[in-house]
């Protein structure tokens, strides 16, 4: 990559200082680079230490060893006030705020730039309206924050972080409380942001599918704290993705869709035939859901033939010394097969 590096670490070790001078290391030997104009998703199982890593990268927690550099400056040498002009954050839970308009909330992002009384100059206001524009929150500007929905509120918190004009924005599970359309919306917004403002965004998430589909790079954190950094697709091809979320092999991994399944227990085999690719796909999905194994070979003991006649699907089940049976929905087919 040729774009300028915004933040990089060298031999970083993150963890906790205990009271009795003992150290709990969560991850060590971390060498990372965050480039301008990229959206990075930090993913990993619960307890891997994602929050600790994020807290360390934004200077809220001291590293146990190693260095963090922001542009050409060591992070620890940057005073709090200067740092706040370079990094802004969004946390999982929007703060509870009464008697505050969206505009007031977003204008708090100008805190590092304003004078001792917090007076907003014309360029401060410009930055605020710019942030509201980018997050499509213009219409919300005069609303009270406590009347917003969860999705709107998180959007406004992102607007506040944008108004802070950072070169790096760090978001800790910003989409945790949101429904699917709002998640997509927020991720899309952040992608636009990195390109327009030439900054970098790092966010942690448990939404693997969304991360794989939108991130420029994925930072994958294992249960044991080891980190790998690369394109989403590289993680799947190298098997690291599967390894991180399925260390005990409890689930079955489908590398084509990057999805995990609960493995079959019944051991029933079925083959699925038919011309309609989409119907075959979802029929297979249904059988895997109840733990059947879908075979390619037509010699399987059970066979399902998916027919599509005039926009009406029918499923024909045959095999095992049984007469052919027809079903008009997957629900009926599955209900029958469960009892075999």
């Amino acid at each position, binding site marked *: 990559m040729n774009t300028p590096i915004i933040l990089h670490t060298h031999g970083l070790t993150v963890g906790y200082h205990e009271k009795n001078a003992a150290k709990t290391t969560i991850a060590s030997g971390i060498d990372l680079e965050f480039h301008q104009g990229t959206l990075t998703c930090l993913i990993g199982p619960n307890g891997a230490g994602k929050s600790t890593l994020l807290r360390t990268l934004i200077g*809220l927690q001291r590293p146990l060893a190693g260095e963090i550099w922001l542009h050409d400056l060591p992070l620890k040498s940057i005073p709090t006030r200067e740092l706040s002009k370079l990094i802004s954050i969004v946390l999982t839970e929007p*703060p509870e705020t009464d008697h505050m308009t969206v505009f007031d909330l977003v204008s708090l992002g100008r805190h590092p730039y304003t004078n001792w009384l917090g007076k907003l100059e014309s360029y401060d206001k410009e930055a605020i309206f710019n942030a509201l524009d980018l997050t499509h929150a213009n219409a919300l500007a005069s609303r009270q924050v406590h009347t917003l929905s969860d999705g709107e509120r998180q959007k406004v918190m992102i607007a506040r972080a944008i108004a802070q004009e950072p070169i790096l924005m760090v978001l800790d599970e910003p989409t945790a409380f949101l429904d699917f359309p709002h998640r997509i919306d927020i991720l899309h917004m952040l992608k636009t942001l990195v390109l327009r403002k030439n900054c970098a965004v790092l966010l942690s998430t448990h939404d693997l599918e969304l991360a794989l589909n939108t991130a420029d790079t994925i930072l994958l954190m294992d249960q044991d704290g080891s980190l790998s950094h690369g394109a989403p697709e590289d993680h799947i091809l190298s098997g690291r993705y599967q390894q991180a979320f399925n260390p005990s092999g409890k689930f079955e991994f489908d590398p084509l869709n990057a999805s995990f399944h609960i493995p079959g227990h019944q051991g029933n085999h079925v083959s699925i035939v038919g011309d309609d690719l989409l119907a075959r796909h979802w029929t297979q999905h249904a059988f895997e859901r109840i733990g059947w194994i879908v075979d390619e070979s037509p010699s399987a003991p059970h066979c399902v033939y998916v027919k599509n006649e005039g926009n009406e699907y029918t499923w024909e089940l045959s095999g095992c010394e049984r007469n052919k049976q027809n079903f008009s929905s997957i629900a009926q087919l599955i209900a029958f097969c469960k009892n075999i």
Partner: protein
Amino acid sequence: MKRNSARHLLLLVILFGCLISIILSLSLGSVKIPFDDVITILLGGEGEKSTWTNIVIQFRLPKVITALLAGAALAVSGLQMQTLFQNPLADPYILGISSGASLGVSLVVLATGTTGTLLLAGIGFFGDLSIALAACLGSALVLFLVLFVSRNARNTTTMLLIGLMIGYVTSAIVSVLIYFSLPEKIHTYLSWTFGSFGGVTWSQIRIFVPVILLGLLIAMGLSKSLNALLLGEHYAQSMGLHIKHTRMLTILSSSLLAGITTAFCGPIGFLGIAVPHISRMIFDSNDHKFLIPAVTILGALIAVVSDIIAQLPGHQQVLPINVVTSLIGVPVVLWVLLHRQRGNR
């Protein structure tokens, strides 16, 4: 913008209310003095009766000034504590200022031997002064203890708990002192705990005014930081706020305000917790740049009005100020709270 001008208009109305209640307070009491005489006396003239001049200048004026200062101080201090601890139940006494003051006063009143008793009983003025001094020392002592213990506190909740614990210890010591004391001494102590705006002399006001002004000035300077704290400490820190400095300065200003007030007036309840809530509601704002002047004026108004009611105009008796603030203030706040909830739905 329209909203802002409505706010400023409301603020002007409250300021005007303040002026009216000051005149009322100077006029009403066990002796009723007509308004025009009050104004003449204030402008340096003589009232119709010479005793009136004396009453207004020597008794009522210091009391009104005390009420104004105390109301403003407690309201601002309460606002600061509520924002700092992000807790709507916080008040100026949350870090043990009043328990420290009561410890100091109880030590002077209850535990002193014959010399102390003589001193107290002998000359009222010095008695009052020594009580104020004891309250000052007591609250300063507890406050420094809280600051010392919590200088490395991870979060503000820990500080809150430390303040609470120290409060328990001091009230236990006070209880022990009361248990072993003579009834008349207990009475002196109890009458201090009732609170009063009276009994502050002109010479004490010369100390009172600059301390309160200093506290208010620091509070105003902290308004931007307190705004940042509204989003919680993590966000505040990410916006460049030095949490520890802000915490210490806020506590300093808050304890200057509440400490000196408690020293001169005793522990006055309700104002510190209620005025910030009422202000946020009627002004519909959480911006400290605006709220600090607003609670200053509203706190002063409510304190003076409470004092007028406590005088029971036309009667010889006087109610303790704490009785008025609680009995009349609490229903008002409850009404505002419930009314507002209905409005929101």
